[in-house]
């Protein structure tokens, strides 16, 4: 199996260089682009069912189609956009470069993980065209609605949904194994754990959270698959009271809550990187952020039942889970104060990646703070399953998945393709996305306070909701413009890939290790040299330094054995 390592670590030829490449950078881009395509699909689905909400009597979608579009929007956005882009894309691309490694610990496993993910996205897309349509029981697929074909008329859609989900978890598990082993073992000389850049810390905590939380849902998914295909009674209730639908909710949300932190935390890591690089100032309270993120990760395992306060949970249990849910606001409060203090006193360069990071930070504050409404269980009696919940998780998801990711893309685009993205287009895109996102999502809070239950295909049936139809018009209009705005980004992304202005090694003059490598880096990242780390990750504007940043390490020529 000996082979010569050429430009892309493959046996030459297009297929093994780009398609089945074992180079973490190529795999990272494959994840990123698949995720972005799925994001576009998710966005278009959202626009379609939002127009049904705004003009219900136009019958844009039948009630069944509306439910399955809502479900597929949720499923695609969480599992086929957030996970691949934030964990697969940035994890694969940035971790080896930032810790000075040549590649992931197991390149073959890494390539396998992408292609399992690719297979899972094929399966989930096929489930649209299967007789009975895609699954229409909410992205949480509560039993018995989801596991019994009689209730929604969806038979094959649900089984394919479960298979695709388990495949996606398998691919992310393979990725997680790779990330944890790489971060632990393949760090450059002198790079202690406390000198790791924040994005690497966040990716590791996210991988560990995913590792420990996905088990019960794979188990639950297996049981649901048995329920669905063979007809066992795990989650379906029989006459004598066998089967327990609440057990599915427990298994789902035991995984669900760590999962939303798995998706949130890398976004915050990217925001931290961009804020420090553009603010020319060290990340304030590095240790505090690391420990509070770990604390939030640990706490995220004991909060899951706040999704089930009014779902037949033993009321005594709800008291405990409400307290832990309110407690989890403390670590994230420390995190946002630390970001704020990082901004204070810096000399901030307003680049488009900074605008996205700032937008993401502000949206994260609103998202985090509105979680208190839902954590307090007495308020949750009224607010559960209303548009308040929808607005809350759109704010928390949006801050990391869309704003954080696009900030990361603008920030690392020069490193990925060796060319810079157009800044003016970027700024227009940033301001537009921020404004129209808030126009779309903020009114939903008031819709929720008015008591508008979620997943309604038309609200005109109820008098106490009919008078708020204008909010639906506003939100739908803003959503349409928001999705349309993304065309600027797509145009900018693909145009600058070939005709963008040439970028040198360190366009943003940042300190972390990846800016020592070529842009785009060669296979093995450092060629015939290997980085040695001397100082911390964010040594910006140190007094008495002529330059306003100190690179984290330097390259020492060493002979790499082939």
């Amino acid at each position, binding site marked *: 199996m000996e082979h010569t390592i050429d430009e892309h670590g493959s046996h030459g030829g297009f297929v093994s260089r780009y398609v089945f490449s074992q180079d973490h950078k190529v795999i990272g881009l494959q994840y990123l682009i698949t995720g972005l395509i799925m994001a576009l699909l998710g966005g278009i689905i959202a626009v379609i069912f939002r127009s049904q909400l705004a003009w219900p009597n136009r019958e844009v979608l039948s009630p069944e189609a509306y439910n399955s579009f809502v479900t597929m929007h949720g499923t695609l956005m969480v599992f086929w956009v957030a996970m691949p882009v934030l964990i697969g894309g940035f994890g694969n691309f940035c971790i080896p470069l930032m810790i000075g490694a040549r590649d992931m610990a197991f390149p073959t496993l890494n390539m396998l993980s992408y292609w399992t993910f690719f297979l899972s996205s094929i399966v989930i897309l096929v489930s649209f065209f299967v007789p009975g349509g895609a699954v229409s029981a909410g992205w949480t697929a509560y039993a018995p609605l989801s596991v019994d074909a009689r209730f929604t008329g969806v038979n094959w859609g649900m089984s394919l949904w479960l298979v695709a989900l388990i495949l996606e978890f398998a691919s992310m598990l393979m990725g997680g194994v790779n990330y944890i082993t790489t971060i*632990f073992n393949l760090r450059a000389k002198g790079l202690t754990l406390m000198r790791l850049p924040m994005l690497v810390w966040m990716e590791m905590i996210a991988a560990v959270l995913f590792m*420990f*939380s996905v*088990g*019960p849902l794979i188990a639950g998914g297996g049981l649901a698959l048995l329920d669905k295909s063979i007809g066992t009674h795990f989650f379906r209730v029989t006459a004598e*009271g066998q089967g*327990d639908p*609440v*057990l599915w909710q*427990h298994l789902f949300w*035991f995984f669900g809550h760590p999962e939303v932190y798995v998706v949130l935390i890398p976004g915050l890591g990217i925001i931290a990187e961009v804020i420090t690089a553009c603010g020319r100032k060290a990340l304030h309270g590095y240790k505090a952020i690391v420990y509070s993120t770990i604390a939030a990760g640990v706490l995220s*395992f*004991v909060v*899951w*039942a706040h999704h089930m306060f009014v779902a*037949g*949970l*033993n009321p*005594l*249990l709800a008291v405990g889970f409400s307290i832990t849910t309110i407690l989890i606001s403390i670590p994230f409060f420390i995190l946002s104060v630390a970001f704020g203090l990082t901004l204070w006193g810096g000399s901030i360069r307003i680049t488009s990646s900074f605008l996205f990071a700032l937008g993401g930070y502000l949206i994260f504050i609103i998202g985090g703070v509105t979680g208190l409404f839902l954590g307090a269980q007495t308020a949750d009696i009224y607010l559960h399953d209303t548009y308040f919940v929808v607005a809350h998780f759109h704010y928390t998801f949006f801050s990391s998945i869309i704003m954080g990711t696009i900030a990361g893309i603008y920030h690392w685009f020069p490193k990925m393709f060796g060319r810079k993205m157009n800044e003016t287009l970027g700024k227009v895109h940033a301001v537009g996305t921020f404004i129209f996102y808030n126009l779309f999502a903020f009114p939903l809070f008031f819709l929720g306070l008015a008591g508008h239950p979620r997943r309604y295909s038309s609200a005109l049936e109820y008098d106490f909701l009919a008078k708020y139809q204008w909010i639906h018009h506003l939100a739908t209009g803003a959503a349409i413009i928001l999705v349309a705005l993304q065309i600027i980004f797509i145009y900018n992304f693909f145009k600058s890939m070939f005709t963008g202005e040439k970028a040198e090694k360190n366009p943003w003059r940042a300190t972390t290790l990846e800016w020592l490598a070529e842009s785009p880096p060669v296979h093995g990242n450092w060629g015939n040299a290997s980085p040695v780390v001397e100082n911390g990750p964010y040594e910006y504007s140190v007094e008495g330094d002529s330059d306003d940043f100190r690179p984290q390490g330097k390259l020492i020529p060493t002979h790499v054995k082939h």
Partner: protein
Amino acid sequence: MEDHTEHHPNYVLIWFILVILTIISILIGKYIDNHVLKVTLLFVNAAIKAVLVALNFMHLKFEKVVVISLVVVPLTLFILLIFGLMPDTLSTIKW
């Protein structure tokens, strides 16, 4: 690359203890009728066997803290899941 200082515990002895424990658990299964006592004894027996296998056969005794935490944390999460779900199922028990 492999540190050869790692000494090997007496595997055959460990194996023998495990077989004895298995036989004990089979006897417990047969002769103890009080349901709660039986289940706890069986669980303790299984836990001892699992710890024996993990420490000696899987060399957890010689591993660093990182790996040990990789085992201990999921076990605590398993216990957490059980006790998180317990009050919910207890309320619907049809004894």
